């Protein structure tokens, strides 16, 4: 076993058996913005076997205050190309697959099929609605996360076991509000992203997740975990 992972293997929640599962796992990260870059970097550092990164955007100056992996010289370049290069330099043992596309209803099945677990790092309700629906159809577990200002949410969604986004009325259509308008700070991005990665690791290694909505606010030092029961009338996952 690669000695670079010694510190995490010493953690009882991981141990060698967990590390083997990490190294054989495939994860798809939808979006390579604030949460996506931090999520992808953490997964790659920890040794996930294959990481697929999906985004059609280019790097902008306003990204650099909170998005990992990008530098000033990268402004104007395709995000997945820059990110792939940075990730491969961090850990050459991880297979990185860049997909320079936006997630749509047309490509969702083929893209989401590539992972054992899907990470939501999107910035709009339309994409999350597509992920919610298609991950349920494919029975792919996924991790919802969203961040704004100083706070954010994380939730595990295990099709057929936990509630989904539609169960509790989370918006599934619309573009949402841009980060430059609503604002967001890097500590909130990293805190929410770290929770999302821990959640994914639990799904991979076999830990329990009831699908509670985790809320965290890094400015007010508040963290809450709120149960969300499955809705039997849910138009996505109800009675199925």
């Amino acid at each position, binding site marked *: 076993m690669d000695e670079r992972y010694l510190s995490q293997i010493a953690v009882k929640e991981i141990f060698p058996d967990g590390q083997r599962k990490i190294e054989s796992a495939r994860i798809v990260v939808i979006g390579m*913005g*604030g949460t996506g870059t931090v999520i992808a970097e953490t997964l790659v550092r920890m040794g996930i076997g294959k990481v697929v990164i999906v985004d059609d955007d280019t790097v902008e100056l306003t990204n650099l205050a909170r998005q990992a992996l990008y530098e000033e010289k990268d402004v104007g370049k395709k995000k997945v190309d820059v990110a792939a290069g940075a990730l491969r330099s961090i850990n050459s043992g991880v297979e990185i697959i860049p997909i320079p596309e936006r997630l749509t209803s047309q490509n969702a099945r083929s893209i989401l099929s590539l992972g054992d677990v899907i990470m939501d790092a999107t910035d709009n309700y339309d994409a999350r609605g597509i992920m919610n629906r298609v991950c349920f159809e494919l029975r792919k577990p996924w991790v919802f996360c969203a*961040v704004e200002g100083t706070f954010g949410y994380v939730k595990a969604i295990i099709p057929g076991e936990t509630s989904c986004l539609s169960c509790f009325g989370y918006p599934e259509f619309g573009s949402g509000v841009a980060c430059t308008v609503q604002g967001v700070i890097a500590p909130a991005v990293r805190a929410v992203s770290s929770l999302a990665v821990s959640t994914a690791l639990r799904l991979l290694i076999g830990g329990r997740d009831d699908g509670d909505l985790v809320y965290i606010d890094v400015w007010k030092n508040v963290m809450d975990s709120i149960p969300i029961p499955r809705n039997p009338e849910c138009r996505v996952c109800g009675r199925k």
Partner: protein
Amino acid sequence: MKVRIKYYAKYRETTGKKEEEMEISSVTIGELIEVLKKKYPSLANERGSIIAVNNRFTKDDVPLSDGDVVSFFPPVSGG
């Protein structure tokens, strides 16, 4: 009846409170929201909330009971 209302994230700035107790006649969640929008007019500009009653999320316009705790979370799109 009395209900306790908890505000999360930007709703705390909008209302100036983390939580409050409110004495109201029998209402549904939808009716409570209308009461709150009258009390805090800037809430009317907010996008639809994610709502939990007694720590369980619901999107149904259910009637509230004495002692219920209603929590309001803003939807978030960013990533």
